[in-house]
């Protein structure tokens, strides 16, 4: 192929030259070019290397089915591998380079692998590389993994960037009555028909220009312009550069719009691409048809292309793709191409494999019947074609023609991929030698060439009919077909017994012999053929080769093509950037970040934050360069000695209101809530249906019919959903209303011997929190000195005299300013999650580390909270035999035997003499206890702590360090009588 740009003709704009770089070399093209057409115009032939044999490859098509010109566009962080040059719009400054080759695609050292091609038959790697050659001696996977490292290096196509993608991508949503896919003649007509009937229509076109095949026809421009104008006037939403990549349930389509991929300098904040989710009542697929090749020796040489591509380069891009052109065809479609190429000055030979055709298109070249290409000769570019003639009993060599371009039309395959996404089975049409989509159970309609309608006038009618059906009217689709004389399908040309490589799937280097070997070895179903030979698994997903592969398998089986079947096409239709699918929800925005109303206040006061589910919570408040360990020990000690204040706003809060609220809570919690007095709080545990602990927290009775439930931070969402489910589906008669009020309140825990003093100093009425006014587990409404109204409850997680104070979220900072002033004055501190952990571990209070979804209320040492007097959720199933076993792991406290030592959460508790096994329990959490003066932990141990009294266990932590001798104690390690919090 020695393409050259013509002086006139084509749709490119010769007044807008564009400079681009190919493998570092500056070249010129024009606005309206694709990278492929510009490269062709510059006489570039070898643009890629094949996957397995590293054979030189050039441009093979003018569309998304491209299997040869696959390149890398851009560099460093913006390098995009595996771009089809035929689909890349040219822009000024575009950089592209060859891939899968060293040092470059023109001289590729990897090509030596081609010499060993005879050994690299389909699936050969399943038969070797297991052990030491030649007989695969050895055991295990060690040798395979050495081979694998080499195979991985050789495989793959382009290289991905190692840097984060610097561009952004958008997500967008749209709704319409009719989605039309493809803006060729049928699609334009369908969109127009539906829009003129008042429907809201979206028309998506993957190309940067509308018109489909009209773009390749120099005489169709007036018609194209008129149609586009009408479509726009009718209010159709037209989306060029937009590929519908998948059809999903209930009329949903996934689209990707290339917003700036064609711009030299995208404007600031413009997304590179936009991923659209479109919900359409009906969909018209006017997706066209793709021309397929024929398998013959050298059919992958640079200079062998589809016939339609030859026409596209000539008429659309103003490039004469060759000077001496052979066109090999099996059908009428190539005749027009032949005439046009000849008229443009090329020497054309049209070889029609059929013995006769009724086509009367005026030809400038020679027409020969009965000849098919047997071999394309030439290494890095075609030099001649060897023909063959079908004698009836096989092929026989018959003449040779010198050429620099071979165009092949093996027939046309309607694009039925999107219909296949909806489960529509393609049906083989023997007359047209192609698969057509069957009827879809959903409102999805085929139109134009996608429905096998080849002729232009019928395409208009087809588009109109599809649009009518999409609107719910009856309409007759024109019959498929439209050629003057029928196609005589041809899938492979080879001499009997020949071993020459004729490619079925050029992108994956799958040959006709590979298909036959698959048959020989029993891989006869299409799914097995595909998997064993990798046919159709490359980036074009078999758009070029699938049908030839099926045909060869059918021939080997002595069956018809439908008997072999076809594979189901999977989305996406063309590959989609992962970045586009992810959109804006990346980096810091990957998941919502939840902040408490006191978040900024905490940061201003020195908090270091930690992740707690989706929340950021204060972890510790380091002073003067303290480490986390120093900080949390100081904070915990301060709480026990004087007082501390901690943001607990992230706890879930649910208003449970209504006449049956008490009864509802009584069913949900294991302990009784029916008789909880107004103005009192109670700690409660709720179980799942299966009897395992689900969540815990305190619930406050604010009025007879008004409760505020608190949940754990991470359990808040789950509990709300669960309570709603119970009320709406199981107990609809209960008159209860639930409202999530988590975000409405800012909450702090004020804990320590001086907590009452600090709190009372903040209140308009200091006596409101006296021991008499607010006894242990009491709840009162309070008014702060600065007028803020709130709720105070005397509850304690730390085991100290403690309160939780809640005020409206917006008043949170003002409340903290007031409270912090009093706290500082009394010598108190702010404390975070780490110190909170210390305080609760000392007391043996459980959190998520202990309540891991596998423990019963008894396991957690809270069996006394399971009421025997009333039923509740989880009661029935918590008494199954395995759950009643005495040797179940139960909550325990853990001390290091040598009090100066520490140990780790996640260590297993094991008998000292046992070197292996599951052990007797495990450690859930460890902290340094300032109150006890040494490291302590919580955990679970078989049978509970009493069973191990006076015995030594090992905290075994082989993944992190040496074992530590420990003793098991009551989980209530500090102030077990609870005198401090009642004081």
């Amino acid at each position, binding site marked *: 192929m020695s393409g050259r740009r013509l002086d006139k003709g084509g749709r490119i704009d010769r007044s807008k030259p564009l400079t681009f770089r190919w493998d570092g070399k500056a070249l010129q093209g024009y606005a309206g070019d694709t990278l492929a057409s510009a490269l062709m115009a510059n006489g570039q032939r070898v643009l890629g290397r094949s996957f397995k044999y590293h054979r030189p490859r050039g441009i093979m098509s003018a569309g998304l089915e491209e299997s040869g010109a696959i390149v890398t566009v851009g560099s460093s962080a913006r390098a995009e591998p595996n771009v089809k040059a035929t689909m890349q719009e040219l822009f000024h400054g575009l950089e592209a380079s060859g891939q899968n080759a060293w040092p470059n695609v023109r001289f590729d050292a990897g090509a030596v692998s081609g010499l060993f091609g005879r050994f690299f038959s389909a699936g050969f790697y399943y038969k070797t590389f297991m052990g030491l050659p030649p007989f695969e001696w050895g055991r295990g996977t060690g040798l395979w993994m050495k081979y694998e490292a080499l195979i991985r290096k050789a495989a793959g196509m382009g290289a991905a960037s190692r840097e984060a993608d610097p561009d952004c991508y958008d997500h967008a949503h749209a709704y319409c009555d009719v989605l039309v896919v493809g803006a060729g003649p049928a699609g334009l007509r369908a969109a127009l028909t539906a829009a003129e009937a008042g429907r809201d229509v979206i028309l998506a076109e993957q190309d940067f220009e509308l018109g489909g095949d009209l773009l390749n026809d120099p005489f169709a421009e007036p018609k194209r312009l008129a149609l586009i104008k009408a479509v726009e006037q009718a209010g159709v939403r037209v989306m060029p550069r937009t590929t519908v990549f998948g059809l999903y349930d*209930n009329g949903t389509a996934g689209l990707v719009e290339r917003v700036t991929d064609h711009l030299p300098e995208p404007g600031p904040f413009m997304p590179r691409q936009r991923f659209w989710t479109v919900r359409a009542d009906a969909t018209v697929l006017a997706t066209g048809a793709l021309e397929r090749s024929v398998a013959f020796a050298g059919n992958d040489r640079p200079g062998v292309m589809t016939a339609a591509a030859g026409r596209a380069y000539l008429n659309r891009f103003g490039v004469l793709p060759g000077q001496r052109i052979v066109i090999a065809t099996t059908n009428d479609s190539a005749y027009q191409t032949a005439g046009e190429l000849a008229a443009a000055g090329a020497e054309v030979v049209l070889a029609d494999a059929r013995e006769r055709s009724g086509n009367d298109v005026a030809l400038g070249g020679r027409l020969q019947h009965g000849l098919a290409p047997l071999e394309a000769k030439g290494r890095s570019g075609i030099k001649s074609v060897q023909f063959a003639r079908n004698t009836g009993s096989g092929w026989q060599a018959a003449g040779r023609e010198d050429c620099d371009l071979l165009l092949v039309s093996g027939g046309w395959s309607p694009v039925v991929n999107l219909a296949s996404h909806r489960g529509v089975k393609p049906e083989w049409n023997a007359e047209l030698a192609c698969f057509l989509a069957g009827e879809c*159970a959903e409102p999805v309609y085929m139109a134009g060439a996608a429905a096998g309608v080849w002729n232009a006038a019928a395409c208009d009618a087809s588009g109109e009919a599809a649009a009518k059906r999409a609107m719910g009217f009856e309409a007759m689709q024109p019959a498929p077909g439209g050629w003057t004389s029928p196609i005589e399908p041809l899938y492979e040309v080879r001499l009997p017994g020949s071993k020459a490589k004729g490619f079925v799937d050029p992108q994956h280097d799958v040959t006709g012999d590979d298909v036959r070997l698959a048959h020989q070895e029993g891989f006869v179903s299409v799914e097995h053929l595909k998997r064993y030979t990798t046919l159709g698994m490359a980036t074009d997903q078999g758009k070029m080769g699938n049908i030839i592969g099926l045909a060869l398998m059918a021939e080997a089986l002595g069956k018809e093509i439908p008997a072999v079947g076809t594979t189901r096409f999977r989305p996406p239709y063309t590959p989609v950037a992962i970045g586009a699918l992810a959109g804006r929800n990346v980096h810091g925005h990957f998941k919502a970040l939840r902040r408490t109303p006191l978040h900024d206040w905490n940061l201003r006061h020195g908090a270091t934050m930690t992740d707690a589910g989706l929340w950021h919570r204060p972890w510790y408040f380091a002073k003067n360069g303290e480490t986390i360990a120093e900080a949390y020990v100081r904070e915990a000690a301060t709480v026990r000695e004087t007082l501390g204040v901690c943001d607990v706003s992230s706890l879930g809060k649910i208003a449970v209101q209504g006449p049956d609220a008490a009864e509802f809570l009584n069913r949900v919690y294991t302990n009784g809530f029916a008789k909880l007095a107004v103005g009192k709080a109670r700690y409660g545990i709720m179980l799942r249906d299966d009897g395992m602990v689900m969540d815990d927290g305190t619930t406050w009775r604010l009025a007879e019919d008004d409760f505020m439930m608190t949940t754990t931070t991470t359990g808040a969402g789950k509990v709300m*959903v669960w309570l709603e489910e119970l009320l709406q589906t199981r107990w609809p008669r209960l008159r209860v209303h639930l409202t999530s009020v988590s975000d409405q309140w800012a909450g702090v825990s004020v804990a320590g011997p001086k907590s009452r003093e600090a709190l009372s100093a903040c209140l308009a009425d200091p006596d409101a929190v006296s021991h008499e006014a607010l006894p242990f587990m009491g709840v009162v409404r309070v008014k702060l000195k600065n007028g803020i109204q709130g709720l105070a409850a005397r509850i304690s997680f730390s085991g100290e005299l403690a309160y939780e104070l809640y005020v409206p979220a917006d008043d949170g900072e003002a409340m903290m300013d007031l409270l912090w002033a009093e706290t500082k004055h009394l010598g108190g501190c702010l404390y975070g999650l780490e110190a909170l952990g210390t305080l609760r571990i000392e007391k043996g209070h459980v959190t998520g580390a202990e309540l891991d979804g596998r423990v019963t209320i008894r396991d957690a040492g809270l069996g006394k909270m399971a009421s025997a007097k009333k039923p509740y959720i989880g009661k*029935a199933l918590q*008494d199954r035999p395995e759950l009643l076993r005495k040797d179940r792991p139960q909550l325990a406290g853990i001390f290091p035997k040598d009090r100066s030592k520490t140990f780790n959460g996640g260590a297993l508790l094991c008998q000292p003499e046992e070197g292996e096994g599951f052990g007797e329990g495990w450690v859930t959490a460890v902290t340094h206890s300032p109150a006890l003066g040494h490291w302590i932990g919580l955990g679970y141990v078989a049978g509970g702590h009493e069973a191990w009294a006076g015995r030594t266990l090992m905290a075994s932590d082989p993944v992190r360090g040496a074992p530590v001798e420990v003793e098991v104690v009551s989980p209530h390690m500090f102030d077990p009588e609870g005198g401090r919090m009642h004081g």
Partner: protein
Amino acid sequence: MIRISCPFCGPRDHAEFSYGGDGSIEYPALDAPVQDWHDAVFLRDNICGLQLETWQHVHGCRMWLKVERDTMTHEIRSVTPAHPGLASVLESQA
């Protein structure tokens, strides 16, 4: 995307909803025998075809819904509030 017509909010993407489970299960009384609870909690018909199931419009009105849906084609036959009282109110208004 499955599209669910919420009786309160209109047709919405299924991403706004969360799937509950088999909607035909009758949960036993809280004091019912262990075996009844076992069967309700652990055993499923697991229908291939039209099944009654529960969904919650969790990013919408938060109502629990009973949905008749084909588990093979994902076609939805009907959507009603799971709460029988609400269902009958809607029915009487229809």
